[in-house]
């Protein structure tokens, strides 16, 4: 059973993710990146628990560490030299700053995409694009479903093959290669057969006789409208702040962050609100649920 933010209409969710990811990617302002990072960590923690967060951190930590190490090695721009490399190029403070900022930015973009993937199941894709472009939407959702099916089938086939290997008693390299090739051929045969089965099944149920309609569980409720309105207003405020120069930042050739006006503060607050909107929704629902239960 889905609760909280996941129950919102897919359009509202898509708008939220698109605006948060694009602001994070295109405005590499240190404060904005920091807000986005904290919010993404909290949201994954709230959404998938500590396990999902650790799995994601393991994945992004390597990327981030590589960016932090490599950027000062290849980029020597900047006014403040910390020391010199043996070949004579300077190691600058600015390139270190930029490496850290880029690493955090990429890591939190990956986090948002990760939670987007967790949220956006194939039924939501069908709901959004089923009317506009029915065939591509069906294709995407079938492909996504097929990946999961393929994984499950491959696990069961490889388990059977392992048992065969145990019986034969031989465990040489060629034996293992033969086993892997056999698994591969089984999977190819299975997927071809499966696609023919699917095609037959779809034809027998009348696919293509009439225009396709899509069935969805989701309805656009007032709360979805409210969510969309908040997202749009936040986006407009941030875009206005960017264009009037309130979110000015500079990494090269000198690190600069000289925006302390009220517009800047407003932009920070608005972006924090936007990023934590799903978190707030979930917490509010939790409080409501607790309060209802205590009355009984």
């Amino acid at each position, binding site marked *: 059973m889905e609760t909280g933010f996941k129950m919102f209409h897919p359009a509202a969710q898509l708008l939220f993710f698109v605006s948060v990811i694009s602001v994070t990617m295109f405005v590499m302002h240190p404060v904005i990146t920091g807000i986005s990072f904290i919010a993404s960590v909290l949201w994954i923690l709230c959404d998938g628990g500590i396990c999902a967060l650790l799995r994601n951190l393991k994945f992004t930590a390597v990327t981030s560490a590589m960016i932090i190490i490599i950027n000062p090695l290849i980029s*020597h721009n900047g*006014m403040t*030299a910390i*020391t*010199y490399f*043996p070949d004579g190029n300077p190691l600058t403070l600015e390139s270190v700053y930029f490496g850290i900022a880029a690493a955090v930015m990429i890591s939190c973009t990956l986090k948002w995409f990760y939670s987007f993937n967790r949220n956006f199941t194939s039924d939501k894709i069908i709901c959004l694009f089923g009317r506009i472009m029915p065939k591509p939407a069906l294709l995407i959702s079938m492909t996504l479903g097929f990946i999961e099916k393929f994984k499950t089938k491959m696990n069961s086939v490889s388990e059977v093959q392992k048992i065969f290997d145990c019986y034969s008693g031989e465990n040489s390299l060629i034996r293992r290669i033969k086993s892997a090739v056999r698994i591969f051929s089984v999977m190819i045969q299975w997927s071809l057969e499966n696609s023919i089965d699917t095609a037959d099944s779809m034809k027998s149920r009348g696919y293509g006789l009439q225009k396709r309609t899509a069935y969805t569980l989701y309805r656009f409720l007032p709360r979805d409208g409210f969510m969309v309105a908040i997202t749009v207003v936040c986006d407009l405020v941030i875009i206005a702040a960017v264009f009037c120069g309130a979110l000015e930042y500079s990494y090269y*050739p*000198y690190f600069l962050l000289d925006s302390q006006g009220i517009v800047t503060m407003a932009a920070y607050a608005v972006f924090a609100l936007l990023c934590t909107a799903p978190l707030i929704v979930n917490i509010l629902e939790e409080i409501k649920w607790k309060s209802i239960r205590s009355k009984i």
Partner: protein
Amino acid sequence: MKKWFAENKFRILFGIIIAAVLTAAFFAGTKSEMSEKGVVVSSSEDYHVIVENSSKDDETHISDLSNEETSAEVSEHESKIIEISLPPESSEKVLSSLNEISLEESAPVSFTENTASILAEDESSLEISENENSVETSEESLFVTPESSADKSENIPLPSEISEEMSLGQETENSSCIISIDCSTALKNDKLSSKVKRILPPDGIILAETEVSFEDGASAFEILRKICREKGIHMEFSTIPLTGGAYIEGIANLYEFDCGNLSGWMFSINGEFPSVGCSDVKVSSGDKLAFLYTCNMGDDIGNHFSGN
């Protein structure tokens, strides 16, 4: 024997295939290296052809000549100021600090004399480039060096390997040339971002004409690297993998392509622009070396292609 062959035929086959692939890769690699070297040569020729097509204006050439004259005047002024602007206190300070260094490192006399000349010119050239500001602030406005620029004598300590290398180099340094770095063309260009414009000197002279001593047979690039390190001027270069030549990407945070597609750093020796890279040109004593920023493939700094 037959049985063994039948059993192990896969292993033999794999071995032969791997050896064949490695041999093929080896020969293909050497071939490509040779062909790439050929490409480098031909591309440099193409480059000249492009320059020939683009260089037509003679008026700019004249204007650049006048610029050179003015810079010569500046150098005369500089020499006057050297004489005037060294108060007795500071010279005593420099001398005492030099004595300390010579005691510590037991360097020969030529070393101290060279440093003295460098130090003297350090102060005077900075006074030329920004008369209003004090010496230290003008240096820090270009590039904040790891070594504190409060005391001039402390400019000499450097990271371990390099300082050793440089002190060794200074013992045998017996030639000197004049070097200058100029980016006044960039300041006139509209494409230069205001961020970079803010940190460049207002007159465009990053380094006024300065005498620098070097080891015999040093290339123009080595001299530039040495002077940039001494004066705390930012300089980034990349090394071309096959030839090992150096390419200057940016000086004082002014980079290639900052003023459009045809902009970048060029250098001249005695007013002539060599057609090879700066690490392939050997500088002889008394040469006049100038690194100039161009916004139009050298057309605006007097690098017209003459036809050869």
